[in-house]
């Protein structure tokens, strides 16, 4: 370290400082143009960091954030104690995200590969438009649609069950179905959109490879398994890593849009994000902050790991 410092020419710091202001002056319009964006980031991302202190205190309004008594890691300990929902919501978050990721790859890849096999341009265009549509709906609207399918007296699902002579199910008071419903809704909403990225990658594939495969007598199934899927692999891996990096985050809008604040189903589908929101109202700001902070730290570690993995697989090109 010291030798490196000695090697730097003495006037460097002064010149650098000078250069800093000269740079600002020279390109002041460009820097001014990024000021609005920077202000938003400062206001809603950086200033909130000061509030993280609440996670280590027993916050009360009278003493304020920095005056409330310091309690160390108590809030974190409570999260994992047996009386709290800590393990439950962590399990729910990981479960819903894990299967969400798996089906969220399977369906879009299948859509892209199969659309590629379809020759009729009209059919392709029509079906692609239909599959893209759910992307435009809000989770509240999806919630309304799900209600239309599963409501106990008028819903389509119970009509179908009746058609097969089966007993109707009171879906909204049966928690065991809702993890699956939430995962399915997520796949339904995103598949058409996600398949676009894979189709974009497929446009660049070398067509001569397919020609020579055909000459060698490969059938379509072989072409898909031996050419298309392997060539899609880098895209699949990068998108998977991106999702794995966010595995501790649930989709608040999705869970609340579909099940709302329904305590009967709560045990099955409460994820960390919705738990933080509920804790804020029932267990206090300090505890909710602690849960949120833990989620952020775990998330940061995972994102950095995923980025490193992506760089290794993807010739030095990371996720960000």
């Amino acid at each position: 370290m010291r030798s490196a410092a000695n090697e730097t020419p003495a006037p460097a710091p002064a010149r650098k400082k000078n250069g800093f202001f000269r740079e600002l002056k020279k390109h002041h319009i460009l820097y001014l143009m990024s000021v609005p964006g920077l202000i938003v980031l400062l206001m809603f991302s950086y200033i909130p960091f000061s509030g993280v202190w609440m996670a280590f205190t027993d916050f009360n309004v009278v003493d304020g954030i920095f005056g409330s008594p310091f309690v160390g890691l108590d809030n974190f300990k409570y999260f994992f104690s047996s009386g709290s929902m800590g393990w439950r919501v962590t399990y729910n978050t990981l479960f819903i995200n894990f299967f969400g990721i798996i089906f969220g790859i399977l369906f879009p890849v299948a859509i892209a590969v199969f659309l590629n096999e379809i020759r009729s341009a009209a059919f392709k265009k029509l079906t692609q438009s239909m599959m893209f549509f759910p992307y435009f709906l809000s989770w509240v609207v999806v919630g309304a649609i799900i209600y239309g399918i599963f409501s106990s007296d008028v819903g389509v699902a119970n009509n179908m069950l009746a058609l097969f002579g089966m007993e109707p199910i009171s879906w909204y008071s049966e928690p065991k179905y809702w993890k699956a419903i939430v995962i399915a809704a997520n796949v339904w909403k995103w598949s058409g959109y996600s398949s676009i990225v894979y189709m974009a990658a497929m446009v660049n594939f070398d067509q001569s490879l397919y020609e020579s495969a055909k000459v060698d007598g490969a059938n379509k199934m072989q072409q898909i398994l031996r050419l298309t899927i392997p060539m899609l692999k880098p895209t699949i891996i990068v998108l998977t890593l991106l999702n794995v990096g966010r595995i501790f985050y649930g989709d608040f809008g999705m869970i609340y849009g579909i099940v709302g604040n329904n305590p009967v189903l709560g045990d099955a589908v409460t994820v960390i994000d919705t738990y933080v929101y509920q804790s804020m109202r029932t267990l206090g700001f300090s505890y909710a902050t602690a849960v949120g902070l833990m989620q952020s730290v775990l998330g940061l570690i995972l994102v950095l790991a995923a980025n490193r993995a992506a760089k290794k697989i993807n010739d030095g090109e990371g996720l960000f």
Partner: protein
Amino acid sequence: MEKNRLLSDKLVTTLAYVFIGCFAVACLYPLLLTVSVSFSSEQAIARNGYSIFPQDATLDTYTYIFVNSGTKILQSYGVTIFVTVAGTIGALLITSMMAFAISIRKLRYRNVLAFISNFTIIFSAGLIPWYMVSVNYYGLKNSIWALIVPSIFNVWNMFLMRTYFNAISPSLYEAAEIDGANHFTVFWKIALPLSKTPLLTVGLMYALQYWNDWWHALIFINDKELFPLQYYLYNILSNVNAISSGRIPSGASGNITLPAETVKMAVTVITIGPIIFLYPFIQRYFVQGIMTGAVKE
């Protein structure tokens, strides 16, 4: 051998048509269901349940919503339209300006700016500190700005736009600079007109985000006059959910008038709103924008 191959190829093609066809129908079916119920009569729905074809087709529900309880839903519509228009214009301006600045290679601290942006994606303080500063310092509780300002700058969208700006040849800028244009003029007169696809794509993304947002209303807004459409619908549905889960005893639920099935679905259709009409036109640009963006990535 050749025959086998032809047969298996045909099988794959058939499978492709069946899979795509089924998935596409599954994507559109629930929507048709919703629309059909909103045009059905309440009695027929109570008798037969939901179905894909309107039963005793009628416009009664829509008349009821707009004539009898019209002001409330129109007010929500107004809030949503204002938030969407103001938010999208503001967001596009902020996002494209910063994306342009970062795309200029001569800018020495552009990597610092990019890092400041990136860091907010990978690490955040969490919901509660964010909520506390928003309410205590910025006064966003029960303010229409709570629906606009917090989501007015999306870092992902900024980087998507930068990818497009990067593709514009710097010599175009230099020519303008020799003629005496400053950076803002270059941005306004050259970079933006050349970037219609990304502007449209990112603009649509912001518009959709503002149109569909109800989460900010959930945590910031109590004042009924400021409810956006989506939150208005959410409130209708969450009352229904609470009762059908059996949380509220049936005796008590007798006092709450539940919105009829057809009303719920009509509000849903109204909430989907202009998207349903614009969709066929915007979808193409959207796909184009995302595809080219993804390829360049």
